[in-house]
């Protein structure tokens, strides 16, 4: 059976792993390579690195750490942040990233997804979506440039429409990050993730809100996502990956132990 994946996310800023609450006030968590190696050893199924400053500040991540991670760890990892061109994507893949994740640049130019998938195959093209619940319209909508609060803006996209569009353009996987629960550890947005799951034919990664082991169980059982991403609960040592996997296995969720 295909196992559900546990994916620690390492937000990277200036070559360090950071974590902010509601994407603000970033605090330094540690160095990239030792943290990545520790998570791999503890049983993480995959890692995601987001350079949260890259898109907003129009600069590309320092790629030297990508090859340092690839040399050291033997599980797949995805690199995100400011990838706008085929050349930038090729560079990350050449340095050893298994996947590249596109968020804001895909919103600026959706055809980028298609060009990337034509060049590298859809298996390595991940689309990150920052979605929020808009009370006014009682709907889910997509935000852009969330790496920097001053640059963050609303888009015209309803989340479901954007999910359909990125699949049509040829992405291989979607990370749905639910903004209004991020960092507060109140659980994944099961309702929204279930809605998106129903229209998502590619693997779906839930992101935002993990606080307890039960939250992971809920998101796999209820929203039927393929993977669950979390950052602060792992960085702060609130949840141990080994213990989490044992807990999920005990609750009959297929997991690689």
């Amino acid at each position: 059976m295909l196992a559900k994946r546990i994916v620690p996310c390492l937000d990277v800023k200036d070559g360090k792993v950071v974590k902010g609450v509601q994407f603000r006030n970033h605090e330094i968590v540690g160095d990239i390579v030792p943290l990545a190696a520790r998570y791999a050893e503890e049983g993480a199924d995959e890692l995601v690195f987001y350079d949260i400053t890259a898109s907003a500040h129009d600069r590309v991540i320092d790629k030297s750490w990508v090859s340092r991670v690839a040399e050291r760890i033997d599980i797949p990892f995805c690199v995100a942040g400011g990838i706008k061109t085929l050349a930038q994507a090729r560079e990350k893949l050449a340095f050893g990233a298994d996947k590249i994740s596109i968020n804001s640049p895909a919103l600026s130019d959706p055809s980028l997804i298609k060009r990337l998938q034509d060049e590298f195959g859809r298996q390595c093209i991940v689309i990150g979506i920052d979605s929020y619940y808009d009370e006014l319209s009682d709907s889910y909508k997509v935000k852009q440039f969330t790496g920097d609060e001053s640059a963050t803006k609303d888009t015209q996209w309803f989340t479901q429409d954007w999910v359909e569009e990125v699949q049509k353009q040829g992405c291989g996987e979607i990370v749905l990050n639910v903004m209004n629960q991020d960092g507060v550890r109140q659980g994944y947005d099961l309702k929204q993730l279930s809605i998106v799951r129903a229209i998502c034919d590619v693997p779906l990664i839930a992101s935002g809100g993990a606080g307890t082991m039960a939250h992971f169980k809920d998101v796999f059982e209820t929203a039927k996502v393929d993977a669950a991403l979390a950052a602060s609960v792992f960085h702060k040592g609130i949840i141990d990956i080994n213990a989490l996997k044992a807990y999920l296995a005990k609750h009959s969720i297929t997991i690689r132990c």
Partner: protein
Amino acid sequence: MSQTTVIIDTGCANLSSVRYAFERLTDDVIVSDDHQVIKAAQRVVLPGVGTAGAAMASLRDKQLVELIQGLKQPVLGVCLGMQMMGTLSKEQGGKLIDCECLGLIPTNTTELDSQGQPLPHMGWNQIEPSAHPLFNGIEAGSYLYFVHSYRAPVSEYTIAKCQYGETFSAAIAKDNFMGVQFHPEKSAAVGAAILRNFLALDTASLNAILQETMR
């Protein structure tokens, strides 16, 4: 020189992961598209990322097709590298056109029937290995990392099976050619054990083992 493991430089992006994985296990591995270096290698790795059409075009550009077909030492194809070892692939840059492959193992690569589950088949899945030396010490049910939408069907050349919707070949082999659909370079300790098994093979030892199993 004769101990060297050579990873064929197929000209596609992302050879690094395969190289790093071998470098974690041995000092004696190089990436090359030099015909003499490949011919002289103790064992050869055929990596692959992207689409069969693009990868085969790259091998033809580098005039590597006949060279690979003539290799007698152990050759390991990884992911797309495995699919290229077959006769035909249906995968050519998103279009459903037959792509002629290396023809080393008589099998065709076609779309995976996931029976409604998300595609690509992405993540850690369990394999059921056979007695092939590549899977020495690898237990049934071991998890390996897969990322693919096309697959080789189960056939007489299957040396490990996996299931996602349908049951398909997680690995295939014929003579000195063996291919794995999963990514051993990204499959933690189990993947490393499989690569170590491959590193233990040379032409003489593989032939001896294969003759033993024939008997």
